[in-house]
């Protein structure tokens, strides 16, 4: 079933203490591959049937007004099969 996905990330220039904490923990646990980490959140939204352009527009608006804090966060809306 295809879903609408909203991914919310702190804007690149905004401090991300959680991501920093993860980045600091990785090498401690033996994972040395990472240079930096930023953490965000992902919403998986199920809809009845195929997401329509109108639904995506609604999701866009919901993200703008509610799911993301656009003062400090950016978001992308997409469909995932």
């Amino acid at each position, binding site marked *: 079933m295809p879903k609408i996905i909203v991914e919310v990330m702190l*804007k690149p220039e905004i401090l991300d203490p959680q991501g920093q*904490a993860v980045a600091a923990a990785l090498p401690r646990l033996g994972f040395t591959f990472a240079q930096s980490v930023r953490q965000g959140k992902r919403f998986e939204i199920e809809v009845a049937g195929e997401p329509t352009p109108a639904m995506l527009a609604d999701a866009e608006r919901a993200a703008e007004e509610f799911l993301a804090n656009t003062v400090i966060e950016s978001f992308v809306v997409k469909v995932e099969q």
Partner: protein
Amino acid sequence: MALDTVANAAATPDFELPFAQLGLKEDEYAKIREILGRRPTGSELAMYSVMWSEHCSYKSSKVHLKQFGEKAVKSDALLVGIGENAGVVDIGQGYAVTFKAESHNHPSFVEPYQGAATGIGGIVRDILTMGARPIAVMDPLRFGAADAPDTRRVLPGVVAGIGGYGNCLGLPNIGGEIVFDETYAGNPLVNALCVGVMRHEDIKLAQAHGAGNLVVLYGAKTGGDGIGGASILASETFNTAKPTKRPAVQVGDPFAEKVLIECSLEIFAEDLVVGIQDLGAAGISCATTELASAGTGGMNVQLEKVPLRDPSLSPEEILMSESQERMCAIVEPSKLARFMAICKKWDVTATVIGEVTSGDRLHITHNGELIVDVPPRTVAHDGPVLTRPMARPEYLDSLTPTSLAPIESAADIKAAVLKLMSAPNIADKSWVTKQFDHYVQGNTILSQPEDSGMIRIDEKTHLGIAISTDANARWSYLDPYNGVKLALLESCRNIATSGAKPLAITNCLNFGSPEDPGVMWTFAETVRGLADICLEMGLPVTGGNVSFYNQTGKVAILPTPVVGVLGVIEDVRTRSAMSFKEAGLELFQLGNADDNFSGSEWAHLHGQMGDRAPTPDVDHETRLVKVLLAGQKYFAAAHDISNGGLAATLSEMVIKSGIGATISIPGEVVPGGLTGALFAETPGRVVIAVKTDNVAAVERIATDLNIPMHTLGVTGGDALVINGASIPLAELSAAYTETFPRLFG
């Protein structure tokens, strides 16, 4: 164009810089050119623009604030006065206390959580910078109408931000205020006060002395926080390839700040710094120019050494970044290794970014190119001083007296008390305060909703301090000169009601636009009133903060001068709580009520403002404070009468206690009748609960000091009974506690 160097600036005198977009006026830009003898570089312009802003330079308020110096109280208690990061007061036994309030109003409107959180972070670093361990915070808050949709957005965010940051730091939040008024819609006031303690010998100052000493930046890395203004410079004139406009919002990390506090205190304990400054507004621009101008004057800084979170930052942006959790220390070279070792232990990034010089200029280079060459004093202290036009606002001539129906029947009394106690300005605030940690560190003696917050300083001697913040914006609106005097007197009364002796004050003056002559007049009257009352009460002003432009269009906020009073109590075990714990106690009112309802909550509930603030009676208040301190050992409880009048004070006492009271008020003794006695907010009054055995002793103290003492009734039962009107505690308590969950839950 790449880097705008000093040489480049000298060679291209006609190059247009966007000074107006950075908030500088034409004459201010001309003055910068005159100081430098050439056009400023982009970096220099960034520094001047932010340091000469209203927020950093106090350009509109300076001419008025100098009264605090002219009318200064000679006080032995004041160890460090106005001008440093925070004032320091001697509280005895070798202890020094530093406290200060600041505003974070606008950021909290834009992004409530982070705005309020970084407000706490900033004021805590100010206190830390003095060499003190921060021990408590308080938050005086103002919001638009309680039921307005935007208040539902702003208030929960602000409260969560204060709690989120303060709780993570392990700092108890011991009080503050929450007031609603339509004028704060769009302009919420988020003031934060922090108090810290140290030994006298541990006081630190923001000075860069000693040529050859090193400038060390430590704490969080520098990112693109809070540099909306500077990005104009960077992105629009010098490097058009810049991606986004930088946000004006800063995000804080309380755990980084906690580590910074402990790291700094360990550094201070080993005496490793010559001077220290926190990085707040204006970031590195502010820290370097203030340190240098308070010291010998010269400093070299290599900007490329600043550790960056975002490598794309331009030099202008690095200078202006308001990234949180950063400090700047001046360290002797011989002590650097130890300084660095302590930072390493705490996992704090520390970098030498420059050195103090014997010259008198601040030189900042970026990869070897000179981009700033200024006399630091001209940036930090010689900003513009404006004498803005002032005019007594016209509204003062069209105020109308209150017209309120008297309350007589028992049913009327009950309905009125329930209505008052459920009003958002009076109702129980624990929906808010329970989100704050009150008792962490284990030294909190009193916190919200007590009259003042009280903290134990010494576990063996039981020495403690009390702090209260107060503002009565409606009285300041009606009479700015007397309004602030009344706020200070109330704050002193709150301190004394708890059993502490008022010692010093700080302030946070929140006003509309200084470009409005009416606002400016109100501000000037407020400063005059505050300076006068401090002189009259013998209380030194330790510092303060001015927040202008709290205004949307033509609507300014009510003038809101928040006053914070610090008191000292020899033995915290002798304090008085606001509520009694047993039945059979006698209740008295100290002081008289009158019939002036102007500015009261009762009038506000009827959509009225009234026409005149009460007249401050300094002599009466001084004697009342003496009665409170002398009588303290006889009081089973003491609670100030202020917002909501006697009715609110009695209700708060019985609700907190869970034990009722039977009150009898002979209406004819008060000019305002029963309504005045219950709902007028006449200052200079306190309710006390006293055991019958102690009544004679208290009466003697009150008589000796000529303070009227009126019998109100006795404690007991499960209702608050006022002149025959019985209000069951359950009903009263429900009215009081249901408002906030209903509005914000």
